[in-house]
């Protein structure tokens, strides 16, 4: 009896175990050449999480992972805490050693590489006072992330991050002059790369383009807006051209660089970009949609009987509440704060959409009106979408810059101003004055051709700096700043952007027309 019970119990256990094994096999059956494997294996390949797909399998990393005996999470946690402590106590050798170990433990977590690499390039490097030490840590952080690409060869985010860091950290840091010089001299990082190519912008662009290639293979770009992702390599070309000029290279070289940048912008403008609304757009197509919308709106207007719009306005006004109407009808200059906050709502309520108009058109025109309204609405929607993406990458401004910078006048103007600045810094006052005068004249020409340039502070800022140098040169030569100044519109725009500038120094304000003094004088 007892024995039989025991036997039955064993059978039950076996059944339960078998029953539990079934879903387990369903979940975790490995992938083979014949079958796709269990659910986990399928998900792994779907999300590209299997080791071999991600990149190299490193024995050291695997050893460390094994050695933690399934306590990888705990070990990683301890290392992170340790790393934090090393950072706090400024033990950089210990910090970087801990980082290496973390990476070995979590080699396939891309954000670890990015985060820790960023820490090295941006947070550790600035702790050092000597710019050479800083550069060492910047490069170390970059190399760290490059190591990460071995384990994650198909991560657009990591590749893009490396490119961005090479380009921006070296090219935009406070010490960018020194960093760019060190980067050019860095045989160890650049290897056999020819000197002409050893520019952080160009090298960074190579990585960014690799990231684009990976994305083109269908790997999703996560964590960054597509338009930004694709704009980085383009901006590298722009920045490269700018830095060429800043460091005194003009002529054909600069011209070609700018042209290349312009081409890259055109290419980006014609690229199909995904947006948050699940629609693909092209940056270049805004004008087409605006045109389309205008046509459709005109068509709708033709079909709209007289007085319909006014009627709609009246109806909407009637639907407003007492206080809303009060705000709406108040003189805009007399509106109180409460009115202003109400107006957001009121404006929404009072807006008349194309479709509202069309739906009120009766008779034979109804269908045509609806169609026109729909077209206009769609075109507006697309135009708006494109505009958002354009604003993000500052499209209008850079297109314009890329268009005018390769022009001979602009190149000449920049060259003259550059030489003027050089002469100014070398205290060659007369020479610099001549160069400034000529350069500013050239700028007049450029600005006359492209008045839109004045819409942006990043255009006027360097010019104003040079104008101030010029002003200082004149002061030192005991000359007065010319009354009707050739680039007065630049100065005006500058005041509009930043407000009046403070005088550069006490004595210069006493001598010539500083804004404060100029304000008191009658206008010429």
């Amino acid at each position, binding site marked *: 009896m007892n024995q039989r019970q025991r036997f039955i119990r064993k059978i039950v256990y076996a059944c339960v175990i078998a029953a539990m094994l079934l879903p387990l096999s369903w979940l975790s059956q490995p992938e083979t050449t014949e079958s796709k494997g269990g659910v986990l294996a399928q998900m792994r390949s779907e999300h590209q999480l299997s080791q071999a797909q991600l990149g190299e399998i490193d024995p050291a990393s695997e050893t460390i992972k094994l050695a933690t005996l399934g306590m990888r999470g705990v070990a990683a946690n301890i290392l992170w805490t340790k790393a934090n402590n090393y950072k706090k106590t400024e033990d950089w050798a210990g910090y*970087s*050693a801990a980082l*290496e170990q973390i990476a070995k433990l979590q080699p396939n977590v891309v954000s670890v590489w990015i985060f820790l690499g960023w820490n090295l390039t941006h947070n550790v490097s600035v702790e050092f*006072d000597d710019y050479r030490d800083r550069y060492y840590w910047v490069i170390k952080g970059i190399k760290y992330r490059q190591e990460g690409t071995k384990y994650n060869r198909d991560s657009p985010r990591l590749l893009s991050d490396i490119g961005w860091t090479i380009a921006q950290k070296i090219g935009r840091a406070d010490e960018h002059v020194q960093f760019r010089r060190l980067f050019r001299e860095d045989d160890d990082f650049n290897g056999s790369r020819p000197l002409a190519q050893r520019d952080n912008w160009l090298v960074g662009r190579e990585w960014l383009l690799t990231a684009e290639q990976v994305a083109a293979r269908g790997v999703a770009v996560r964590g960054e807006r597509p338009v930004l992702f694709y704009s980085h390599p383009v901006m590298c070309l722009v920045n490269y051209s700018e830095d060429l000029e800043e460091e005194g290279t003009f002529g054909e070289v600069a011209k070609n660089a700018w042209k290349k940048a312009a081409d890259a912008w055109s290419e980006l403008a014609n690229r199909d970009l995904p947006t948050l609304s699940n629609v693909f757009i092209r940056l270049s197509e805004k004008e087409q949609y605006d045109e389309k919308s205008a046509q459709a709106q005109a068509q709708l207007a033709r079909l709209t009987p007289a007085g319909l719009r006014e009627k709609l306005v009246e109806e909407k006004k009637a639907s407003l509440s007492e206080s809303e109407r009060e705000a709406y009808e108040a003189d805009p200059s007399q509106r109180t704060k409460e009115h202003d906050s109400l107006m957001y709502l009121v404006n929404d309520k009072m807006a008349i959409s194309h479709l509202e108009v069309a739906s009120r058109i009766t008779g034979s025109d109804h269908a045509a009106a609806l169609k026109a309204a729909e077209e206009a609405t769609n075109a507006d929607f697309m135009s708006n979408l494109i505009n958002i993406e354009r604003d993000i990458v500052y499209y209008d401004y850079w297109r314009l810059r890329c268009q005018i910078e390769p022009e001979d006048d602009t190149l000449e103007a920049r060259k003259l101003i550059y030489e003027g600045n050089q002469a100014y810094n070398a205290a060659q006052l007369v020479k610099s004055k001549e160069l400034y005068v000529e350069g500013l004249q050239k700028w007049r020409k450029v600005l006359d051709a492209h008045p839109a340039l004045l819409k942006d502070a990043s255009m006027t800022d360097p010019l104003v700096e040079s104008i101030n140098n010029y002003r200082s040169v004149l002061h030192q030569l005991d000359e007065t700043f010319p009354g009707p100044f050739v680039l007065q519109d630049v100065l005006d725009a500058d005041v509009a952007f930043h407000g009046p500038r403070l005088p550069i120094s006490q004595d210069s304000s006493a001598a010539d027309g500083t804004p404060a003094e100029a304000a008191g004088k009658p206008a010429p």
Partner: protein
Amino acid sequence: MVRETDPPLFSQWLWPSVLYFLEAAAILGLLTVVLSFLVAAFRYGPVAAGDVTYQAVRTSLRDLFSLSPRRISALAWLAVQESLRRRVLVGFAVFLLILLFAGWFLDANSNDPATLYLSFVLTATTWLVLLMALFLSALSLPADIKNHTIYTIVTKPVRLGEIVLGRILGFAVIGTLMLGIMGLFSYIFVARVLNHTHEVDVASLKNVPNDSSGSRAGRTTLAQNHRHQVTLDAKGNGSTDIAQGHYHNVTASTDGDKVTYDVGPPQDLLTARVPEFATALRFKDRSGKGGDRGISVGNEWKYRSYIEGATLAAAIFTFSDITPERYPNGLPIEMTIRVFRSYKGDVEKGILGSLVLKNPKTGRASQIETFRAKDFYIDHRDIPRTLTDPTGKTIDLFDDLVADGQLEIELQCLDDSQYFGVAKPDIYLRARDASFTMNFAKSYLAIWVQMLLVTGFGVMFSTFLSGAVAMMATLATIVMGFFKQFVVDVAQGAVQGGGPIESFVRIVKKQNVTTQMEPGLSTDVIQAGDRVFMWFMTHVTGLLPDFRQFDNVDYVAHGFDIPPDVVLVQVFTALGYIAAVFAIGYLFLRTREVAR
């Protein structure tokens, strides 16, 4: 090197510690006697209990005084034999494997490879040896009891204390042997890995601008992931800059027209500086008022404090015991000064600072000596015996600036709105260099001490716990020992997130440590439980050894001589613990029926 607290002076440490030890021993001893009396009274009644307790104390003391070296050595010999039997050699194999593959796990591009490699071998050795000590010591006695081999031991005139002591000594001998060999291998490994040389990249040599002496500057070839900048005089001799914590000397030899440059072995890479630290550091603020600390530049770490440039702010280091006998060639100063810039300034140039030597009594001072601060580097400068004062008069270092062996060195930052940060150990006199090999050996002595402690605790626990449990208990002691500071902080409520129970609840509920627990009954219960827990933790951890205290890795790794006082304190602390675990082990073994 960072020293957040001054290491203890042995002479000042000894008596308080001995007193504390005796106090703890007396309390524990009394507690044991009272406890055994109570147990005996429960079993045999109070009258007989008195006799039993008296007999127990008497025999214990008699046992203590009849320890025989021959028996202890026999038992130690047995422990050694047993360890060899249990293939401790596997430990060596693992160690060699670790060394062989160390390159896999270590950052080849480290900016301080000496520190990295030294801390690596020392840490690896520590863990391996401790692990083996743990296995050997905790499993041995329980195995003897389980196999009944203990029967033939305890039926001999062996005192129970001898069993405990013999085992501790035996395993210590094995540990010592292992450490010796591991130390040798580590030393060879580190020396071999770090030793390297470069060649002068002749193509890069260019004349130094604005220098008519014919000196040239260039760089060396790449080796071990770094290269140096090299400055040579007209003859071609010179030295490199400091990279990865070392520099090389360069000598040129001419053979006809051909000049060959010989780059020497790395200097300052494996050193043991014997620093003479300042005995006091005080600050002056920007208006010249004195204080204990400078200003904070907002770092979380409060180790260094800062002085503002181009103001009266200064950091004043007081050195004692400055005599011509100790420093016949003047003062060799080494300093590490942190720089904090509040604005970019000239990127290409370091921040200007100054040093002034002052007589603390007369206030007589030397002419200021300026320098550009080298952030994160050890800057070496020699102060000669003959100096000038601000008026240009010649003065003697020892006669005019030292009073009663004391000398002040005043550090100032000269650039406006820039800051220097220092802590007391940041400026020191590099009196001499000790032998690196000896220093390395001293660091192994500290590992040896830790090994001895683990062995002692392992044997102690194994006198009353079964093998696996004894091992876990010893492991817990080690872990607690390494995190003692944290455990003490938790026990005293200094760690955010409450006591152990509360923290656990927070983990389960995924609740942030900074959020308040919801008030209510359950929270009250949890916190009451924690208070009990923490009371025990406070008192138990107080008795456990702080393993961090035995950590000399930092000294060796950063190239500083381990002060003899530190070594002495470590050894004596360990001896105290060994005495304690010996007594406890003896008592537990006495109360144990080995034939159960």
